[in-house]
């Protein structure tokens, strides 16, 4: 039995997980239209390589990654691209983002050239990373960081690879269902990841409220004889599913502030990501579908295997939700999810849950109605904070817009889990304050950067103007000098120059010597003397002739 550790704080929440785990997972109905955002991940948006009118096949690449920290997008089903346009997406700003819109043809025709491999050991770790990148796999726990980067150990030695199956938010059960139904596939995915990272050992962390998932995993680990994989049930406390929290629970090590898990020899991936890696390597399939929980007030709460790009409204209708009575739809869990402003918003690679009208239970929701009251300095938030911050202080500094001081209290270590929010007796929207402060600070930094560039450009311009002025003056001076009548001084200079030239020519003439006069025979010497005598005679005759 592995010794487990604890992180500071955390809260116990009502789980609400039973409803959606009764029925087995089925593929969701094929939607008429797929909406594929170009940015479903952290980093640069992907660049579309199709145009409206193009026919695409299921699994076809339709947008390539923008740079290293980016991920491609693939068509989730066959059909016709109808538009590449701005469409509502799940973002708290309610702004639209560029999306590729595909009208499906219902045929689900796959691409024919899937790069499948029989045995991943035939590939090098680098090739596996390339496959993972080409398959568009990103962290499926919610953050959406491109996975190929997290599969690259660089110069780190990875001791432990952790698979995160904690899934601590209420209502969400997609990882649990995946583990129950596809335990073997997840474990093969984990082995591929371990090979890519050259990690020593693997731990699968699952909250102990999912006994069926743990049993399924245990059985498969035993069957495959993978003794380097350990399935560890962890206590059910929110937010155990946070990357840093799970690492702390399983290893007792804390990820340094501003650092990465890799710095302490640990890498953590979501179980859904492992499954996607398995599909990509063994079958050459890109990431085009995922498990999504549809919960809350729908007739049949359940998990569906959803094509990426399926509009949320289609999923709600399939599960018996009434589209006319939707008051609040949340994408993600009740603690950290985003309230949607438009139900045509598509499910993306990071969508784990669609929560419909969930006012049931004691869970604070992303946009709750209760009016906030002043802070009474009770300190409950500090006791609940899993990162051991002082939420109250952060709140006061955010409120006072003191963005220097708030960073001294480690605002950027806040994981926005909402524990402080949940326990606050004054119902202060604390996480909103931190998000506000974070974006304000980023905007200030951006402004500073812009100002620095503007300062440089201004200084350069000043210098340029100064230089141009000087050059103009000099040109002016030269012209004046050229206009002046040639005085004695100029004459003298000219004469001196001519004299110097003549002297140079004379010196050159004198320096000139006949060549090949060394080592001559006496006869040749005699001939030369004769010739010279003739020349001298000729010269004197010439002189005599001239009058």
């Amino acid at each position, binding site marked *: 039995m592995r010794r487990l550790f604890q992180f500071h704080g955390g809260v116990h929440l009502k789980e609400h997980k039973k409803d959606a785990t009764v029925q087995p997972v089925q593929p969701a109905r094929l939607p008429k239209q797929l909406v594929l955002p170009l940015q479903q991940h952290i980093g640069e948006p992907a660049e579309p390589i199709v145009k409206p009118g193009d026919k695409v096949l299921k699994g076809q690449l339709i947008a390539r990654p923008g740079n290293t920290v980016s991920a491609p997008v693939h068509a989730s089903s066959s059909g016709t691209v109808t538009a590449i346009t701005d469409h509502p997406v799940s973002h*708290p700003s309610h702004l639209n983002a560029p999306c590729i819109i595909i009208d499906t043809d219902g045929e689900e025709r796959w691409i024919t050239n899937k790069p499948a491999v029989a045995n991943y050991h035939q590939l090098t770790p680098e090739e596996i990373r390339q496959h993972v990148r080409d398959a568009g796999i990103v962290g499926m726990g919610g953050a959406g960081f491109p996975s190929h980067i997290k599969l690259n150990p660089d110069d780190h030695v990875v001791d432990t690879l952790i698979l995160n199956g904690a899934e601590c938010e209420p209502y969400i059960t997609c990882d649990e269902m995946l583990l129950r139904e596809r335990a073997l596939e997840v474990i093969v995915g984990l082995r591929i990841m371990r090979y890519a990272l050259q990690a020593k050992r693997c731990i699968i962390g699952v909250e102990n409220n999912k006994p069926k998932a743990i049993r399924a995993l245990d059985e498969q680990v035993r069957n495959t004889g993978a003794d380097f994989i350990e399935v560890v049930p962890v206590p059910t406390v929110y937010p155990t599913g946070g990357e840093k929290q799970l690492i702390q629970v399983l290893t007792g090590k804390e990820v340094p502030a501003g650092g990465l898990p890799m710095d302490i020899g640990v890498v953590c991936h979501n179980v859904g990501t492992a499954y996607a890696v398995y599909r990509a390597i063994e079958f050459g399939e890109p990431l085009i579908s995922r498990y999504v929980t549809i919960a809350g007030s729908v007739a049949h709460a359940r998990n569906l295997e959803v094509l990426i790009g399926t509009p949320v409204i289609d999923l709600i209708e399939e599960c018996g939700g009434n589209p006319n009575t939707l008051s609040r739809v949340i994408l993600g869990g009740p603690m950290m999810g985003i309230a949607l402003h438009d139900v045509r918003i598509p499910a993306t690679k990071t969508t784990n849950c669609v929560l419909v009208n969930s006012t049931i239970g004691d869970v604070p929701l992303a946009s709750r109605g209760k009016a906030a009251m002043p802070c009474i300095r009770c300190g409950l938030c500090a006791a609940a904070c899993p990162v051991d911050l002082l939420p109250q202080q952060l709140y006061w500094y955010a409120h006072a817009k003191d963005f220097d001081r708030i960073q001294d209290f480690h605002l950027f270590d806040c994981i926005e889990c909402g524990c402080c929010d949940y326990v606050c007796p004054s119902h202060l929207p604390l996480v909103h304050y931190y998000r506000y402060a*974070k974006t304000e600070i980023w905007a200030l930094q951006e402004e500073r950067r812009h100002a*620095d560039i*503007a300062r440089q450009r201004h200084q350069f*311009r000043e210098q340029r103007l100064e230089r141009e002025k000087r050059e103009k003056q000099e040109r002016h001076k030269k012209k004046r000098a050229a206009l002046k009548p040639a005085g004695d001084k100029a004459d003298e200079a000219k004469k001196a120059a001519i004299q110097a030239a003549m002297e140079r020519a004379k010196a050159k003439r004198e320096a000139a010597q006949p060549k090949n006069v060394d080592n001559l025979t006496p006869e040749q010497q005699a001939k030369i003397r004769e010739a010279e005598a003739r020349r001298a005679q000729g010269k004197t005759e010439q002189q005599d002739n001239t009058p």
Partner: protein
Amino acid sequence: MLAAIIALSIMAAVFGLLLGYAAVRFKVDSDPLVDKIDALLPQTQCGQCTYPGCRPYAEAIARGEADINQCPPGGEATIIALADLLGRDPKPLNPENGVEEDVKTVVEIDEQLCIGCTLCIQACPVDAILGAPKQMHTVIRDECTGCDLCIPPCPVDCINIVPLEPDLKHWKWPPPPDPLETLEEEAS
């Protein structure tokens, strides 16, 4: 008595020399205060402060000639930062210099109307306008500071101010409602 006077005189002389040497040895060429003030200014180079650019304004503040509330593009945030740096009390923006705009703006040249006179290029303090005589000009959007100095010289009035639309990358969370204010509202 005499010994004390002599001892004190010698000490005074020694310390005087030491201080004099230190003043020469550790002399600072440029005024660091000006650099610090300049770093807080928004570098729009718009001249609304009545000085010909941000650095001259910084120098004027350092000399004590100018007040800290003359920079409309920087607005409240800059005034607070300057007050912090200089140990003064923040004060509201001087309305004579202008008003703080809520939305950041840049300019755009209507290329159909532009006659290629280069007057705007000469006016731009950060060389953010590209063009040549008798060729239409255009604004490098990323470099434009929104100072609007190019607008008055344009003979055909083809330069327009456009607000910078927020995009997903630069979007900011709005400040949450103040609980004290909601309390007061309820009370009234």
